[in-house]
C-alpha cells in the first residue's frame, strides 16, 4: 500500500459502510436512555403498592382508594349482586369473562363478595359513577360512566356504551382474610 490510490477500491466502500452502520447503531443505542428517561421513574414505581384493610366495609358498601394515582373501586357485594353477576356469565358480553375469573380467593376459599377493579372507564379514562349510594349505577346496577355513557354490571363488565373492555382488575392479593395488597 505505498500509493495513495488503494489497490482495491472496494475496501474503501467497506470502511464507509461499516462506519455508517456503527454510527447508526450507536445513535440508536444512545437514543434509548433519552427515551427511557421519560418512563416512570424509580420513585413513581416505588409508590406502586397499596394495602387496604377491608374490615370496616360493610356489605353493600363500596370504597375508593388510590393506587398509582388512579382510583380503585372496592365493593363489598351483596349475595344478590354476586348472584346477578354469575347469572349473566352466559349473556352476550363484549369482553367475555366470568365473574369467578374477576375475583380472588384466600386460602382456597373464593372471596366472591369482594370485587376490586380500577375505577377507570376503558373508553377514555373517566371515573365511572356508582360508588356512592346516591350515584347513578346504570342499567346493569354496577357503574355508569357519565362521559360517554358506558354501563358496567355488578362484576364491572362492560355491557352497553362505547367502552371496549371490562373495568380492569388490578394485580392484588389477600394478605389475610380482611386485608388486600394492591400492586
Amino acid at each position, binding site marked *: 500500500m505505498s500509493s495513495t490510490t488503494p489497490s482495491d477500491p472496494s475496501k474503501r466502500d467497506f470502511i464507509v459502510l461499516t462506519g455508517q452502520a456503527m454510527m447508526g447503531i450507536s445513535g440508536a443505542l444512545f437514543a434509548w436512555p433519552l*427515551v427511557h428517561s*421519560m*418512563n*416512570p*421513574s424509580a420513585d*413513581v414505581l416505588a409508590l*406502586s403498592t397499596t394495602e387496604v384493610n377491608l374490615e370496616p366495609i360493610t356489605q353493600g358498601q363500596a370504597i*375508593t382508594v*388510590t393506587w*398509582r*394515582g*388512579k*382510583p380503585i373501586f372496592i365493593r363489598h357485594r351483596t349475595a344478590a349482586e354476586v348472584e346477578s353477576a354469575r347469572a349473566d356469565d352466559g349473556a352476550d358480553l363484549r369482553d367475555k369473562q366470568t365473574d369467578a375469573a374477576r375475583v380472588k380467593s384466600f386460602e382456597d376459599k373464593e372471596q366472591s363478595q369482594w370485587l376490586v377493579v380500577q*375505577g377507570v372507564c376503558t*373508553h*377514555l*379514562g*373517566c*371515573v365511572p359513577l356508582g360508588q356512592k349510594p346516591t350515584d347513578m349505577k346504570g342499567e346493569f346496577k354496577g357503574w355508569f*360512566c*357519565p*362521559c*360517554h*355513557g358506558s354501563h358496567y354490571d355488578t362484576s364491572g363488565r362492560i355491557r352497553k356504551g*362505547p367502552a*371496549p373492555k371490562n373495568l380492569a382488575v388490578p394485580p392484588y392479593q389477600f394478605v389475610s382474610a380482611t386485608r388486600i395488597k394492591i400492586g
Partner: protein
Amino acid sequence: MAHGERTPFQNPVIEWVDQRLPIFTLLNKEYIVFPTPKNFNFLWNFGAIAMVMLVIMIATGILLAMQYQPNTMMAFDSVERIMRDVNYGWLLRYIHANGASMFFIAVYIHTFRGLYYGSYKQPRELLWMLGVVIMLLMMATAFMGYVLPWGQMSFWGATVITNLFSAIPLVGEHIVTWLWGGFSVDNPTLNRFFALHYLLPFVIFAVVFLHVVALHVVGSNNPLGVEPKSKADTVPFHPYYTTKDIFGLTIFLIFFAAFVFFAPNYLGHPDNYIPANPLVTPAHIVPEWYFLPFYAILRAVTFDISIPFTHIVLIEAKFGGVLLMFGAVFALLVLPFLDRSPVKSAEFRPMYKIFFWVLMLDCILLGFAGAKPPEGAWVYIGQAATAWYFIHFFVIVPNLHKIEKTLPLPDSIDAAVRAAQAHKAS
C-alpha cells in the same frame, strides 16, 4: 444576498453594518421594495396578524413562566397568585389565554382564505404544507398550555387526549405510560407538558420563518389567482401593504382587547376554576372551541370495523376515531396533490365555490357537534358531517375538474383591476 448587488446606504452606521452583514439590504429587498400583487383584499391581512399573535403569545408566555410553578401541588395556586398578586398578572394571563383563541381565529381565517383562493396550488405546495405543520404544532402547544393551570378541565382533557394513544394496537398502553411518566396524569406529566409548552413556540417560530422564506421565493397568491406578469401587476410591499396590514391588525387587536377586558372568561370553561381532582370526572368534558370540529371527528367512529360476517375486529372504534382525527389534518397536508384544477381562485370555479361554502358550513356544524354530549341526533349529525369532510377532500376535490367549466381568467391582474375600475366609474 449576492456580493456586489448592494446599493450603498446614506447612513454611515447602517452602511458599516450592511457591508459586513447585509441585514438592511435583506430587509429592504424582502419588506420594502418586495413586489406584491396589487389586488389584495383584507383576507390577506391574516398572515401578518397570525405572526403578531405568535409574538404576543411568546412575550406574555415568557413573563407568565417567571411566575408559574409546574408542580401539581402548586400549579393551580400559582395561577391564582398571578391573577391576584402579581403586578398586571391578570392582564398577562388574560392576554395569553384569549390570545390562544385569537391566534386560532387568525390562522383558521388564513387557512380558509387559502382554500378559497387556491393558494395551495403549484408553485405554493410546500408553502402550504409548512403552514399545515405550523397548525399541527399550534394544536399540540395549545393543548399542553391548557393543562398547565391544573384545573378540572386541564386534568381531564389531558387524561382523555393522552388516552387516545392507548388505542394504538399492541404498544398503545406502553406509549401512554411513557407519555405520562407514570400510571396516570400526574406531576411528571405536568412537568414535561410545561417544558414542551415552552419549547414548541420556538419550533413554530422556526417553521414560520421557513413559511415566510418559501413565500418570498414563490410570491403571494392573490384574489384572482393569476400570477403577476409585469411590473404593472404589483406594488412595493412598503408603504402599500405595511399600511394595509397595520390597519387590519388594529381592527383585530380591538376585537382581541374586547375579549381581554370585557369577557375574559367567555371562551374558557368554568370547570377549569376547580382544582384538578383525579377521583372526580366533570359531567361533560369539552375541549376549547378551536378543537371542537376535530373532537367531533374523533367521536364520530362509534363502531368497530370488523371483517364482514366475523367477529374479527380490524380497527376498534377508539382507534378508528384517532385515525380519522389525524386524517382530517392529513387531508389538508396532501391537498395540493388532490386538487387537479389548474384554476386557483374560486371566483373562476363556479362549482368549487359552492363546495367551498358547504365545507365551511360542514366545519361549523362539526364544531357544534363537538360541543354537545354525544347523545341522540348529535351523534348522527357528527357522523354525517365527518363523512362529508372526507368526501369533500378525497372524492369531490380530486374529481371536480373533470366536470367543472371554469370561467375565463383575466389577462393580467392589472387588466382585471382596470376593468373593475372602469365598471365602477360608468
